[in-house]
């Protein structure tokens, strides 16, 4: 499937999984920069040669292949895109070193604390475990609600007037929050408890970046059902990347 180039990019290929938050955020970064690329959907149950060759260490998506050279790890890829195409489109990371450190800190937090918690909700073996994971998720959201207050400085997005690094890292997880609500009735970002984030979710959903890249929630739900029937020992993190 070929996307029409709006900016000359050399050859860009993205190996991905439509519903993976790690992939979605890279596609958002590419969209922000107006870059065309060939998207190749991967079957994570039967991994293809190109994926295995391009990411021999982790064998995971996303992998960006630029002029034949692979770049792995979603956060490294986003920073690569930002640096190579610094002159094209908006900046993804802030220019100020302190703000950049802050964005990196919260992105690491969103991936190491928030993500495993909500993934845990989907895979909890017992009701007790599910309740614990819901609590962990809400606690992480609480911290991110505070972070939004500090980072945004009264502006609409974490990055300010328009979306940036942290908006993409968190925004790429939103479709799964919707899926969790549909499948388990769990509300991750509740207006009463996290009003700033709830408003941000609406605004983020209205951006071109979100509209063009994020798949329908039903795609996520379908994929989760497929995972549930395949589970047999693999971890969800493995199956989402």
């Amino acid at each position, binding site marked *: 499937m070929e996307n029409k180039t709006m900016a000359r990019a050399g050859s860009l290929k993205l190996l991905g999984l439509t519903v993976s938050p790690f992939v979605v955020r890279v596609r958002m970064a590419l969209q922000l920069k107006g870059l065309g690329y060939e998207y190749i959907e991967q079957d994570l149950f039967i991994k293809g040669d190109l994926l295995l060759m391009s990411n021999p*260490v982790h064998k995971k998506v996303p992998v960006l292949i*630029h002029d034949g*050279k692979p*770049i*792995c*790890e979603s*956060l*490294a*890829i986003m*920073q*690569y895109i930002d*640096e*190579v195409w610094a002159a094209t489109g908006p900046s993804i990371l802030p220019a100020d*070193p*302190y703000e*950049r*450190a*802050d964005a*990196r*800190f919260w992105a*690491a*937090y969103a991936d190491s604390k928030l993500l495993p918690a909500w993934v845990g909700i989907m895979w909890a073996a017992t009701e007790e475990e599910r309740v614990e994971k819901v609590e962990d998720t809400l606690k992480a959201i609480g*911290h991110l609600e505070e972070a939004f207050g500090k980072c945004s400085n009264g502006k609409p997005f974490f990055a300010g007037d328009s979306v940036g690094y942290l908006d993409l890292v968190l925004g790429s997880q939103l479709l799964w929050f919707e899926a969790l609500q549909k499948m388990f009735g769990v509300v991750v970002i509740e207006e009463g408890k996290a009003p700033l984030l709830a408003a941000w979710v609406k605004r983020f959903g209205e951006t071109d970046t979100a509209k063009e890249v994020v798949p329908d929630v039903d795609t996520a739900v379908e994929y989760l059902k497929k995972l549930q029937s395949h589970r047999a020992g693999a971890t969800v993190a493995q199956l989402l990347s």
Partner: protein
Amino acid sequence: MAAGDDLKLIGAWPSPFVTRVKLAPSFKGLSFENVEEDISNKSELLLSSNPVHKKVPVLLHHGKPICESVVIVQYIDAWADPGTGPSLLSSDPHERAVARFWAAYIDDKLVASWMQSFRGKTEEEKSEGTKQMFAAVETLEGALRECSKGEGYFGGESVGLVDVSLGSLLSWLKATEMMSGAKIFDPVKTPLLAAWVERFGELDGAKTALPDVDRVVEFAKMRQAQAAAAAAASEN
């Protein structure tokens, strides 16, 4: 060092993540005030500077906190005057991406498995950790070959982000070798890494920042004794 840099590092000498942050200014010729934290009795300064994780290291620059060791190292590198020494990250975006990839690998795979080999709750868990640790070291041998391009460091001719990330673990890895009798950086299996360990250890920056191995061994033994006592107490 420029006047008014006002760099304060809240740390604890045993932590390899703190060592990592000490290495960065060490290599860039920056000085900073070291604030030693008692981890068993965390200070107000630490708790207010890192309310989310309540962990060391925290760098305070003009009073503003920066947390997470890899974030701090990149901050120091980005902010410090280019005159203070070569950048820890290449100017080439692809090389930077590769460095970030390996820095993440070191924490996610090497550190995680090494911690499991130390702190695993069962012998089985510990030995699985050890197995994965050795596998990670072998992978890093390949990484060094790829990144160094025939030069001495992951960063090429000079120390880079990956050298700092891995180098920060050296006292602990050497302590582990002493305590277990097993060679982690075997000159036969991982010759490039074994040579790198020697080379890195000789650098002034490393000598300044890395804690003394014997002291780490003593600390590790004390922690193991504490853990054993706690386990025994909980069984009674």
